[in-house]
């Protein structure tokens, strides 16, 4: 969900990070690009009418937007993988364009791509940047098609709302090619898709998820090429939101449970250690019923930590409770190190969940995103 905020908040946080830390100090200034100037951009002020496939496409009137796939894959011989594939669009200040040619861009694009090889305990994160010009990066404004160089997610039929999507990415020895078939229609997050991020009107995003995709394809890791299949989750969000002070980072969960229900939760942590009131979530029952969750409707309790070689401590296990749904889950990472140690530094990893739902035991899997932990106190 709040992955958009990931960018902006991380950027702001990185600016305060210790100089010795590996977080690039320049990260701070992406805040200027991302959060500095909102003039000329539309803002998410009120709920809107969503329409597909149009809203799978780009929304260049808003400053920030992303397409966010995460998933679990498995192959023969107990091979197990996790992946993240994200394209971030960041609108540049809308100035009068020069008369110049094709290099003048309205957007900068950042791609994050990671594959975890759980059998071998390996994790490979990658990033790419390009401007939205000359076909180097871009997205359709009418259907599901977004790319950054040769990293691409494109619908087999961009005119279809529920068309399968082909994902392809490669970097170094790692490559992923998947055909993703949606198994559940888009779920509008927040209030009919308007996800409020702060008290200020407009500190909000438009946000929908497609929590269940059936994935099949191939993955390449240094250990070899593998035919794989599995499940994936898509988050789509766009906004021009300007961050509010006092927000330290957040913990975000997306879980697909065995009974067919899906859970999204996010807790925004404030500087003082409390949970921000704009934390929220959604529970989608197996029959498709959507139940919005407010801050007081759930709890997230860290149960352990994992420390990076340079001393950043991330939570590494949690107990989640959603009393209204009768849900209690123990959540643990597949492997500890799934840190995206890139220009923006955060932890985004595959997790497994076990617990009970309405008194019945239930299992599941999903992804967790942890931001704002690289910050010294």
């Amino acid at each position: 969900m709040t992955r958009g905020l990931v960018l902006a908040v991380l950027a702001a946080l990185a600016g305060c990070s210790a100089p010795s830390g590996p977080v690039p100090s320049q990260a701070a200034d992406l805040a200027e690009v991302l959060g500095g100037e909102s003039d000329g951009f539309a803002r998410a002020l009120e709920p809107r009418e969503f329409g597909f496939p149009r809203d799978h496409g780009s929304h260049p009137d808003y400053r920030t937007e992303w397409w966010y796939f995460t998933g679990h894959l498995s192959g023969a011989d107990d091979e197990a993988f996790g992946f993240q594939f994200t394209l971030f669009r960041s609108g540049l200040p809308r100035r009068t364009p020069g008369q110049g040619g094709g290099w003048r861009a309205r957007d900068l694009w950042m791609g994050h791509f990671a594959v975890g090889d759980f059998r071998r305990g390996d994790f490979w994160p990658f990033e790419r940047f390009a401007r939205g010009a000359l076909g180097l990066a871009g997205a359709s404004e009418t259907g599901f098609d977004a790319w950054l160089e040769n990293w691409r997610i494109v619908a087999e039929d961009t005119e279809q709302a529920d068309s399968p999507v082909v994902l392809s990415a490669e970097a170094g020895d790692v490559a992923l090619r998947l055909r993703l078939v949606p198994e559940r229609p888009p779920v509008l997050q927040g209030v009919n898709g308007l996800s409020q991020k702060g008290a200020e009107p407009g500190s909000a995003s438009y946000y929908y998820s497609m929590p269940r995709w059936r994935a099949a394809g191939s993955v390449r890791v240094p250990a070899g090429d593998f035919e794989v299949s599995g499940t994936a989750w898509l988050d789509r969000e766009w906004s021009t939101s300007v961050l509010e002070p006092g927000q330290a980072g957040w913990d975000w969960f997306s879980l697909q449970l065995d009974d067919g229900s899906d859970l999204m939760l996010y807790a925004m942590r404030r500087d003082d250690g409390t949970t921000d009131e704009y934390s929220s979530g959604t529970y989608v029952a197996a029959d498709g019923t959507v139940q919005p969750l407010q801050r007081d409707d759930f709890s997230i309790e860290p149960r352990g930590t994992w420390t990076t070689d340079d001393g950043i401590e991330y939570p590494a296990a949690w107990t989640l409770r959603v009393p209204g749904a009768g849900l209690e889950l123990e959540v643990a990472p597949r492997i500890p190190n799934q840190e995206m140690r890139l220009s923006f530094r955060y932890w985004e990893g595959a997790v497994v969940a076990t617990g009970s739902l309405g008194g019945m035991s239930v299992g599941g899997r999903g992804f967790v995103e942890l931001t704002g932990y690289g910050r010294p106190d």
Partner: protein
Amino acid sequence: MSRTLNRTSARYLTRHPWQLVLALGGVGLGVAVAVAVALATESAQRAFKLSNDRLVGTATHQVVAGTAGLPDELYRRLRVDLGIRKSAPIVEGFARSEDAASGTLRIIGIDPLAESFRGDLGMVLGTDAYPLDAFLTEPGAVLAPEALGSVGDVVEATVDGRLIRLAVVGRVPGDGSALADTVVADIATAQELLELSGRLSRIDLQLDATDLGDRVQAELPSGARLVEAAARADTTVQMTAAFELNLRAMSLLAVLCGMFLIYNTMAFSVVQRRELFGALRAVGVTRREILRLVLAEAVAVGTVGTLLGLAGGIALASRLVRLVTRTINDLYFAVAVEQVALEPRVLAGAAALGILATLVSAIAPARQAAGVAPRVAMMRSAEDDSGWVNHPGLAGAGVLAGLAGFALATWRGGDLVAAFGGLLMVVLGASLLAPTVVRAVAKGGAALLGAIVGTPGRMAARALTVGLGRVSVAVAALALAVAVVVGVGVMVTSFRTTLIDWLGYTLQADLYVSPVSARGQSATLRLSNEQLSEIANLTGVDRLATIRTISVETSPEPTAVLAPSHAVEDRESYRLLEPSGNQAMEDAWMRFEGGEVLVSEPLAERRGVAVGDVVTLPSPSGALELRVAGVYVSYASDRGEVMMRRSVYASLWRDPLISGLALHLADGATRDGVARQLREILQPLQVVVVSNSELRAQSLVIFDRTFRITAVLQTLVTLVAAFGVFGAVLAQQLERAREYALLRLTGFTPGQLRALIGAQAGLMSVASIALALPVGWVLAWLMIHVINKRSFGWTLQMTVPPGVLGQAAAVALVAALLAAIYPAVRATIAPPGAALREE
């Protein structure tokens, strides 16, 4: 014992401060000149390499296409379709700006997001010093080094006559000194500023896999080339190699002069101490110890002199580097040197050269000292007994060495280094003739001066032959310097005369119009067809010609392509070297009209191209095989030019642009009037409108600027030589102080004594001039016909100006007479008794 010996050295040197100063001066000046030239040229090279390294980083290859550039789309194909992620597009151009120290501002356009694989020019997130959003979106946004402007400043510059405004939004990351006079802009901004929409200057690639090169090659449009980055940088540096070698050769002449000086000083000190050495030998000091003693003195003097020379050279270098940089900018490529780089390698090399030169110069005197027999202790003689000057084979050896040197220099298979080696042999061979010349001059002088001034004149002439060894060396040193003055003077004058002649017949139009743009860079004059016809129809304009000049990427260096609109009509502007004969020339022009090309002399010379051969040029229409119809004279550039008909060029390059205009005016039209109308039509474009005479004058200004450094070096060499003569005369006179005192006592008037001393100095300069003029002429001939030809490929008409000869003679005479003043004054002031008691 050795400590005692060392003390005798120290005592001797401190008691003869003049000699010490001369020896130190000789070493010091020679080393200073050598160091200064080496540092200045190295600094210019280093500045280029630093900025190149900075910009190229770890890229291994570059795709280039000369002025025409590359399509944007090629970059996407290489990066995305071929998956070469270590790739970066570059747009580069030059502007004229008052704010740039060198006057030329380099604009580098980059994609900050593509740079991460190399260097630190890239940026993906932005910082205060590199605000990405402003960099990417503000009009004219650039990162600039501190020296050019602070954040918020606007730097004004002119590109192809257009005024552009650069908004400084940040600082070039890292060490800015490597990128002096350079601003970094986003590639979109750079394309706008330079009017290169849709075109890239080059694409830098880091090709890790060997097979990638072939795959890239297959993608390239015609006219583009894939080159190795390092080789390309080397080629650029190589362009100045000949220029720099010429400078270095001259600086070595200064060292050679210095060596003569050291020899002289050491030889004199040995002669003066004959008794001492004899006595030392008598008390049991071995020959070896004496040899070592004198060599140790030489090393001590050499070391101190070298240190002084290094200090002086460093100071001198900061002045020379400006001249060197200016010339490189005028003739070769844009480079800005912020400061002289004190390369340890250069300093160490110069130090070794200084000490080694001292040591080599001291070997003969040291052996002479060691050869003093013990019994000489009891003999009193201060005479020069260096036997070599009387060796009968000396003159023959000199002639042989000179001839061999000439043969080496002119040997067809030889390169530039061989030419300089041969030149050096000629100089050294000529030096061996010095005793012969001195003897002849003394003989003639005795008769002549005897008749004019009587006894003092005859005595002066005889004195030359008595101290023949040292006199010869001093004369050789002065002759060498004068020969250099003559040789370089004749060469420069010949060059200048040739250039004036060429400018005279080449610049036949009345007015020339070009956009205000960076010096030495090919420009584009952007005119609409309406403007063009408006100009053609101006009252006063009889005829309008246009020219297009572009640079294309060829190996090993770029080639200029010239496409004049009226080459055939204006054929008096071009002089064909090949073929010769009226009918053959007619045929050549016919073939030119038919689509063949003419090549400039430097191209023909340096790439071995002759009439009937084929030159291959890349073009947007593919690789062109162009047959050469003729070779024409051009001093515009020492890089090669290929001239073709405009229609041929236009169809091959699909390029309708022009670089400049040439206007022939109707009778009665005033240049100023037409120029004013021109400027009005071309507004707001800033253009340079010059008459042919102004253009001629400007060309000569650049020419003179190029040779200013030569003149400076010439002066320095002369200075070293004058020092040598000064030392030789001084030493000789000091040695004779006792003799002069006796002469005074026997009735010589101070005036007669002064005449004697002055006549001696005068005869020495006459001997030098007699030796220098023919040697200078040979040097000039070699420089013009061999060195210039091999360096730059130009044929120059040799002109021997009497002024240069007179100037050279005056230099020799003045140096010798100045050197005589102090001994003359001293000999006449000192009470005769004191000089006698000194013994």
